């Protein structure tokens, strides 16, 4: 083997490596100008807390990947909120710009994104991502740099386990979603309560806590557990757990679902097996408006119960205003507005109220203000944080499909509630 040939074999790798390494790392590390993102920020990174330029608020959302459907809805919510604020004179007199980076539902990407937003783009404020799995690592990054972290989609215990003082979840803790339902069962005379209950749960932090809690509360009321299992969420094949539930002939089914396909699959199987539970409540799915009814058929939807912190027809005046403005801006039907939009909007509202009250963008002040026990208002209802950052003033409602309409039924006496249909009508053949 000749000398120079061996040389090439060794020289090329090293030199090219050095060159590439230097170029790549310099390219992404040294840049201080914001690039890309989903808003045009025209020039300087004027997200600083002082000055007259626009206020840049940064967030990372799952625009691709596992959580992409919700991530996109959150994007709509945040951007809509910003446009509303700007239409009403802006925040502290300045225009609001939302800068969104995509995290592809990945925890390591979400960390990189918030690092970028905070240390390269120098955003004034940060808003939370979607899902507890991403909120936990992201909140830690924000905490390190003293940023308040208001979010609406991270309520699992892991988010609060680190006891970070900058985390504020505006949405109702997942575990309490079905409380009005259990209260209603309690209100029934013993003879009318369902004798048996089935509790199938998708393996997801948004589907297990509330169903488990309900099971625990219903047991002493005389509702025997006929079935209680966790099924994996990955595969869209829910035939087997659905068959097992049908086989159990439980009178009440409390399904821990996170999306329409899960509920639709269970309903399908129940229909095929000619199994008619007296109560069928799902954690999520029936609250998706037309996405739900077109998937299962309007006739089948009747009688289905679902918890919802918000729905387009909500009587809350802030919500009505938002729905009107949303439809005016984007067109379409109020009933098509995704609940995630309201969640994201609420996050913005809380930030808005804090900043306006303090007349300052100081994150430290915002954090102590939000921990001061003050009650703020949002389209999802009142917001008041405990020391962990959970919103215990959040309200829970139960809705039901009746005659093709999505109506509020529980709490029974609350404003806007109609009579609950019980037992659930049998499947139309």
């Amino acid at each position, binding site marked *: 083997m000749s000398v120079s040939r061996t040389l090439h074999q060794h020289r090329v790798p*090293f030199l*090219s490596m050095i060159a590439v390494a230097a170029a790549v790392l310099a390219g992404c*590390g040294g840049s201080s100008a914001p690039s890309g993102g989903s808003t045009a920020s025209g020039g300087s990174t004027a997200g600083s807390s002082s000055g007259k330029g626009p206020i840049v608020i940064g967030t990372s959302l799952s625009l691709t990947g596992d959580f992409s459907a919700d991530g996109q809805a959150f994007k709509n919510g945040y951007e809509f909120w910003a446009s509303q604020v700007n239409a009403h004179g802006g925040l502290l007199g300045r225009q609001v710009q939302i800068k969104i980076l995509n995290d592809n539902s990945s925890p390591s990407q979400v960390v990189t994104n918030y*690092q970028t937003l905070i240390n390269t783009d120098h955003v004034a404020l940060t808003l939370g991502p979607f899902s507890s799995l991403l909120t936990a690592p992201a909140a830690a990054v924000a905490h390190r740099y003293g940023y308040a972290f208001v979010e609406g989609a991270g309520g699992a215990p892991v988010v609060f386990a680190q006891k970070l003082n900058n985390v504020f979840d505006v949405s109702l803790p997942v575990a309490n979603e079905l409380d009005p339902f259990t209260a209603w069962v309690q209100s029934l005379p013993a003879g009318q309560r369902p004798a048996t209950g089935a509790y199938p749960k998708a393996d997801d*932090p948004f589907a297990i806590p509330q169903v488990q809690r309900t099971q625990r509360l219903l047991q002493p009321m005389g509702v025997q557990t006929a079935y209680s299992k966790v099924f994996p969420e990955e595969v869209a094949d829910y035939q087997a757990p659905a068959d097992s539930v049908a086989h159990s002939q439980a009178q009440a089914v409390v399904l821990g679902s996170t999306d329409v396909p899960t509920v639709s699959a269970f309903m399908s199987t129940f229909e095929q097996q000619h199994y008619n539970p007296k109560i069928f409540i799902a954690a999520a799915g029936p609250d998706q408006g037309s996405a739900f009814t077109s998937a299962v058929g309007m006739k089948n939807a009747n009688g289905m119960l679902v918890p919802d912190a918000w729905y387009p027809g909500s009587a809350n005046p802030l919500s009505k205003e938002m729905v009107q403005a949303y439809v005016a801006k984007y067109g379409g039907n109020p009933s098509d507005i995704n609940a995630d939009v309201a969640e994201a909007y609420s996050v913005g509202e809380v930030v808005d109220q804090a900043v306006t009250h303090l007349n300052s963008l100081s994150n430290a002040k915002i954090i102590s203000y939000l921990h001061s026990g003050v009650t703020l208002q949002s389209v999802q209802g009142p917001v008041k944080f405990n020391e962990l950052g959970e919103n215990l003033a959040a309200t829970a409602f139960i809705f039901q499909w009746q005659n093709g309409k999505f109506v509020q039924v529980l709490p029974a006496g609350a404003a806007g509630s109609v009579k609950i249909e019980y037992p659930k009508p049998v499947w139309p053949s």
Partner: protein
Amino acid sequence: MTPSAVRQAAARAARPRRGPPGFSGLPARPLLIAAGVLAVVAAGVLFPVAFPSPVATTYGFDTLIFVACASAWNLFSGYSGYLSLGHAVFFGSGVYAVAVGAQDWHLTGTGVFGLLPLAAAVGGGIAIPLGLVALRVRRHTFVVITIAFFFIFQLMAFNLAFTGGTSGLVAPILNWSGATYNNPFYYAALLLAGATVAVSWLIRRARFGLHLRAIRDDEDRARGLGVPALRVKLAAFVVSGAITGLAGGLWYYFIGAAAPQSAFDPLFDLSLALMAFFGGLGTVAGPVLGALVLEPAQQWLTARFTSNYLSEILLGVLFLVVIIFMPRGVLPTASERLARWRAAWRRRREPGAETRP
């Protein structure tokens, strides 16, 4: 051409290609290579000084983790020819080893770093039973069995109670200042990456590496020649697993959260394969180049590509292009091209003289 030149050329043409070039054989100019290595190491050490922004060190950390993991993957799969698509098993096990350890033994602060050797031990330890089962089958089957292991482990992470199930676990908070928080992690990753490349190089030079390459080229013949194939493969598998486990543990503490989908991520394995392939499968520097180029690019693009899964399509196309047009990877192909170009240039400069590439 003189007769001796003809003979030399014929001899060169007849010599069979023995696989991609690497840092194999005795370097003719050790000084140049040493200088090159030193330059790269110096660049790595000085990088956080030159670019102090935490964003740069975040990219740096993530990239170095992949340098280590891709090199570790390559020193098993690249050298032996057994493509493993289940290395995420080691990574995830390292993640959970540190996560569960920190939680159960109530460790905080720098104490958690003490769990890193445990992560390596878990990674390497798991490789033994897995290897004993998987390394007895043909290469095609081996790939599938590694995929099966991957799914089994991911499922265990979902279902077993001590892993925190689908919500996962979070790490104790490190109260370091934000401006320099990343630096210790970065240097730890740099150390790991450097050590891995060194190990990879040493293996390649040693008889161990020769055994592995013999297995890759023709396992039956290697066995016939007395290579203890199973033991050799298993040893490489264990080393690879231990390094990957350590990387996982370190990564966990940096990110601060562990969940089944992120600790056991199918795209992790594909990324390792792509990086090693891109740079040059079976070479020492190949996976390093692959990681240095692909990881920052992937992160940067993901943050800004927000729709239509364009990034996924581009990734696949890049993969295909690399495989079809540069099947041996960037480095060996570039090396070859350069060598051929130099030969042509020299031929033009000295017509009639002996052709030497």
